[in-house]
Structures are given as structure tokens and as C-alpha cells.
């Protein structure tokens, strides 16, 4: 039984701005029993790209960097996030994370599966697609994707280019280093004045079971800081 037969996904849209990458992935996926739809975005119209993918395939494998050489102003993370909102299974992959990790973080709650480019073999792709199907169609997140409400203490504000990042210590996450969070994920009024959030503790929903800091997502930041000065008297 081929990987394609096992996952009941037959036609995969491979989305990338580099034709060479698309060709390599196509060869691998065809050998594993899939049909492939090549999608090389050349328009700034995200909805047109989404329609092309959802109209032509059962699932999508999408590179994060889509901006090379064409009039494209959206990222693969945004494509996958939009597909997730449409309950369409997809997997994001990328070769270089460093410069784009906060663009990805902003969308990570809606990126059901993520693979480094050097791990794009059919077995891993099939596993990632299966996780994506479970999350977007059946509402079952993998254990490391399950969100937990927990306190986050904002310890720093960093501005790099046009990006404002707050750094937060996450209660319950095994890593001891602060994690960079796009400031626009904070709730109002903190998102517009993120410097005022430094030193405060907020509740947010985070996938605490994830060990890789680049795969953490942050959503549902609450606007009221946690009451931390003294303990309330139990009723």
C-alpha cells in the first residue's frame, strides 16, 4: 500500500516559488503514489491562490518563502493559515527559519503541521498530512499542538525593523529562555503600547507540550493582567 493510499489523500498541491523545488518534491510524491498539482504563485491575490489549491487538490504542501521573483506579497504561513480556516489540510515547510520565525509565529496556531525542508521525505510528509487532517477536519490536535491557558510574563520589548516583539517567560514550558512574540498578538490596549506590557503577567493559550520554541503558538492573550501582588483570600 502506498503512502497516498494509507492517508486517503490522493492529489497534493505543491506550492513554491522555485520550480526546481517543486519538481524535486513532485518526483518524490509521485513515487509515493500521489498525484501532484504544481502551484507557483504569481499574483498578489491570496484568495485566487487559495481557490486554485482547494479546487485542484485534496491537501497542500507549501513553502514559507513565496516572494522570489513574482508579485507575491504573502507568505506560505499565511497561505497555510488561510487554508486551515477553510478546513483544508496543509503542511508548511521552510529551509531558513531565522528571519521569518515571527511571521510564522503569528500564524502558528493555524499551521497544523510544519516540516524543515531537509525532512521532506514521503513518510514524514504523510505523517504531517495525517496530523493536519486530524486537526483541521476532525478537530483533534496532536498532543504537542494542544493549547493550554497559562501565565506569560513579558520581560522585554524588542523592535527589529518594522517588527515589534515582546519577549515572554511562559509558565509550564520546559525552556527557561524568554520566547519572542509578535506584539500584535497581545490584546488591546497592550498591542498598541507594548512597552507598557513589560513587567506584567498575562494569561494566554500556548501549546505547552511542544519542545521546539519555534513551534510554539500564542493565542487568546487576555487584556486584564493577572493579579500577582498578593493572594486573594479564599471565600
Amino acid at each position, binding site marked *: 500500500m502506498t503512502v497516498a493510499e494509507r492517508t486517503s489523500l490522493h492529489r497534493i498541491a505543491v506550492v513554491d516559488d522555485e520550480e526546481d523545488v517543486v519538481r524535486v518534491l513532485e518526483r518524490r510524491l509521485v513515487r509515493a503514489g500521489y498525484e501532484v498539482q504544481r502551484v507557483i504563485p504569481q499574483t498578489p491575490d491570496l484568495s485566487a491562490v487559495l481557490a486554485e489549491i482547494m479546487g485542484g487538490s485534496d491537501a497542500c504542501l507549501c513553502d514559507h518563502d513565496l516572494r522570489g521573483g513574482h508579485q507575491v506579497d504573502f507568505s506560505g504561513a499565511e497561505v497555510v493559515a488561510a487554508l486551515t480556516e477553510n478546513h483544508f489540510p496543509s503542511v508548511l515547510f521552510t529551509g531558513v527559519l531565522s528571519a521569518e520565525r515571527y511571521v510564522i509565529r503569528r500564524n502558528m496556531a493555524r499551521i497544523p503541521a510544519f516540516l524543515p525542508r531537509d525532512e521532506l521525505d514521503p513518510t514524514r510528509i504523510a505523517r504531517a498530512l495525517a496530523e493536519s487532517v486530524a486537526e483541521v477536519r476532525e478537530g483533534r490536535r496532536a498532543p504537542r499542538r494542544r493549547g493550554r491557558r497559562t501565565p506569560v510574563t513579558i520581560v522585554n520589548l524588542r523592535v527589529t525593523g518594522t517588527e515589534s516583539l515582546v519577549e515572554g517567560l511562559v509558565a509550564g514550558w520546559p525552556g527557561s529562555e524568554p520566547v519572542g512574540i509578535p506584539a500584535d498578538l497581545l490584546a488591546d490596549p497592550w498591542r498598541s503600547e507594548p512597552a507598557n506590557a513589560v513587567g506584567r503577567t498575562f494569561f494566554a493559550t500556548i501549546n505547552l507540550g511542544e519542545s521546539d520554541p519555534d513551534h510554539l503558538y500564542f493565542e487568546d492573550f487576555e487584556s486584564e493582567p493577572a*493579579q500577582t501582588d498578593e493572594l486573594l483570600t479564599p*471565600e
Partner: protein
Amino acid sequence: MPPGTENIHAVVLDVGHGNAAVFIDGDEALVVDAGAGDLVTDTLERYGVSDVAALVISHRHHDHTSELPALLSNPDIRIKKLFLNADPSRQPSSAFETQLRGALNDSIRRNGTQYQQANVTLGEEMGTENLSVEVLSPTAELCLAGVGSPTDAGGVLHAHALAVVLRVGVDGGRSMVMGADLDHHGLRGLIEDTDVDLKADVLVYPHHGGLAGVGTERGEEELAKELTAAVDPEAVIVSNGRERYANPRREIVRGVRKARTVPPIRLVCTQLSKECLAEVVRDDRRLDETLSSLGAETGASCSGSIRVDLVGEGPLLPKGAQHLEFVIDTVGGSALCVNAELVVNESSVD
């Protein structure tokens, strides 16, 4: 089996180097410690349990408290009582303590959580309908001395000396001693207190099978042997991790295994000790598929999270046989838990 006791068991969670255990009593739970990750939450979800009758934190070190703020903050979990070991050596201004206060206030506001910050609490307050709890340690003497007070040997009492050790059991069923990180001061007091009955079916070994601070290899082995003999368990569970430490220590394992040779004490480690195998093994067949384990994804688990049945005539460890099969097939006779030469040739305590 008395009516209503069919679904009473414990899960010792693979949280790496740390401790977390969930006792399930029907639709209620007792939680003892909350180490790294979100496995206590995951376990409660898996059993469909949202009411935690009591959550006990043995001492305020991160490998026992990490998940606590998230548990208190979870809108789907109602923690009725929280027993926090007082520890004056902690830093109240640290980010974690600040987060803990925020989460506890939130839980008090939403659920009316009652909390008590103390070393000694009556075990009766921690139990559920069918689970009885006894606080075995710290002793009143150690509590009166307190963390940081001088010892006879010229040192000072560490927070581990005042870690809360519990025996949790079912009347007419099985019981477990939860050893926390109790060090040699506490262990010596516990073993020598003739009023305390330590007998239990399972000993969750103190301090992840690491050193108790005795100072000599021979002394560590002797203490491990005395403790294990006093508990006289069917199984000893070590909640260990691979990343920083090579636990359980050989001298501890020697002491445990020498405490009783017939029938032999079953030794189970949640993660593969580096002493047993240098590399991890990616093979999920050894794991209980109904539970999550921190070491599952990397292959670091040995037993992984393991269930202990506290009632019934079935095996104490329902997945114990498949774990032992894995150890014998994969690690072989050099595994600490089965290595005969460890007890015979390396022994320093007769």
C-alpha cells in the same frame, strides 16, 4: 472489590527528570507534583476527569512545580484544594513565583480553590472518597528546624529534607509511597521512626534515583537498601530523565535490589538511563498507548508513563510485562533493572 472502586489507579508520568503522578478515583483525581510539560492536564483529559480533589506539591523546585500554574489556570479543570510545601529558600520575586500567584488568584476567583502553604498537613484533608492519604514526612522535628537550619554534621537543612512524602492507598487494596526528593536527613528520620509504617506495594523512589546526600557510595547504597526494605514494595518506580543526569545511580539500584532478592523487586524507570543505553531507541511498542510520555517522541522513554492498579486481582503494573520484554530485547542483561552482576559482584553492602 467494593462497589465504586473499579476505576482506582495511579499514573506515574514520564516528565523526564521530575515528578508528577495522577491518582484517579472515578470522576475525581488526586495529583502529586506537577513536573515539566502538560502531562497532568493531558492525563486528566484522557480520563475525562475535571475535578481535582487535592493537588499536593512536595517541595517548590521546578521539576515538581512546572505545570502547576497552567493547571491552576485551566478553565476546564477545577482544583478544590492545593497543598503547597512552604519553602523559605524560594525567591518570591522570581517570574515563576509571580506567575504562580497570578494563577492561584485566578483559580481562587473561578473555582474557590482552597490553598494551604505548610510542610505538615493532615493527610485526611488530601484524600478522595476511596483514596486515603498519609503524610509520612517531614517529621515535626524537621519542620520545627526548617530549611536553612544547621545540622549536626555542620551543614544546613536543604528543601529536600522537608519534602512532603505521602502514602496513598485504597482500603483493602494497594498503596504507594511517593518519595518526592527526600534527602538523607529526612530518609533517616523516616526509617528510624518506629511509629511510621512505610509498607506499600509501590515505592516511587526519592530524588529520581539520584543521590540523597549521604556523602559516600557505600552510605547511599545502605540508605537505599534500608528504605526499600522498610517499604518492602513489589515495585520501585524511578521518575528519571536522560538529559542532565545518569539516574538512577548504580549504588541506589544496588541498594534497592539487595533489599529483597526473593521475590525480586521489580524496578521500573520512566526514561532510559544513560547507564543502561547510551543512545535512545525509537520504538513505541513498549509504551502504554493510552498515556502520553515526555520521552516518547525522542525515544527517551523506558517504561514511559506507567499505570499502577490500586484495586483488583490483576497485575500491579498492567503494562509491566511489555516494558520488561523491551528491556530484555533492547538493552539486554546489562540493564540496571535486570543485571545480576550489579548485585553480586559490585555490591559493597552485605
